[in-house]
């Protein structure tokens, strides 16, 4: 069955169905992370002795990771712009960089987790580590999802550019919406977990 209004806006909403669907998905993602942020507030306000994040966590690594993730958001939007300008070579370079930066983020995050495990800090250690691992772990899963999605559009998925360039551009825009959302979550996670 053909899904309708993929490249032409649906007259009822003024949007393509793909974009509307992506925004509804992101709305559900906001509620998913919202529940966990709410759990964080509950744990923190309910405890008598909450540690400062910078005393337990590696701020320089997380700072570098913040810059990397913001950088990857910019390369993603530049990939979309290059594709909109029909410059496929540049599109591939920017999208490739986006995937690469996401992988660097995961490697650094993995190093951080490794250090924590070496010092026997686990999600079961205390409430701080429980919510830290839950929030950053769920976020890291989203990064992995983004890597898979963008790597698909970089290699097999990009065949669509030859058959239907307009729909492919919409796909990249929606993939971008998701990727910027993942960046946006980290913009809040970084100060909340590491700096306060």
């Amino acid at each position, binding site marked *: 069955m053909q899904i309708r209004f993929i490249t032409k806006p649906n007259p009822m*909403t*003024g*949007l393509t169905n793909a*974009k*509307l669907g992506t*925004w*509804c998905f992101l*709305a559900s993602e*906001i*509620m998913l992370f*919202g*529940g966990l*942020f*709410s*759990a964080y*507030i*509950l744990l923190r*306000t*309910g405890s008598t002795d909450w540690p400062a994040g*910078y005393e337990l966590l590696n*701020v320089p690594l997380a*700072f570098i990771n*913040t*810059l990397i993730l*913001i*950088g990857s*958001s*910019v390369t*993603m*939007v*530049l990939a979309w*712009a290059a594709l*909109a*300008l029909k410059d496929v070579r540049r599109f591939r370079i920017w999208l490739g960089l986006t995937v690469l930066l996401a992988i660097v983020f995961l490697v650094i995050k993995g190093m951080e987790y490794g250090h924590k495990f070496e010092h026997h800090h686990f999600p079961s250690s205390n409430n701080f580590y429980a919510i830290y691992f839950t929030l950053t772990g769920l976020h890291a899963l989203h990064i992995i999802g983004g890597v898979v999605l963008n790597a698909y559009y970089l290699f097999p998925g990009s065949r669509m550019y030859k058959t239907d360039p307009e729909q492919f*551009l919409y796909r990249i*825009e929606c993939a*971008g*919406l998701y990727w*910027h*959302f993942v*960046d*946006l979550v980290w*913009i*809040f996670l*970084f*100060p*909340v977990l590491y*700096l*306060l």
Partner: protein
Amino acid sequence: MAESAEHIQKQVRIYLSVFAVLMVLTVVTVAISYLHLSTGKAIALALVVASIKASLVALYFMHLVSEKKIVYAILSLTAFFFLILLLIPNLQ
């Protein structure tokens, strides 16, 4: 999107300026934490800076500056329920 090449090139310049501002604000976030303000002030300031950064990403990278009404409607509804979710822990 059937936008002109000129329009997109102008957008790219905006993206790069937003990138620069985001980098500066990230440094500001970390700098604030070195001031060792009282917890209340530190939380307020950190959330203000994070919200500015998040707004920049949403407005420019996610193209919310020029989006259709229905997306704003969905996001307003989400923001409403999100706030309720955040307020629940404080309702004891």
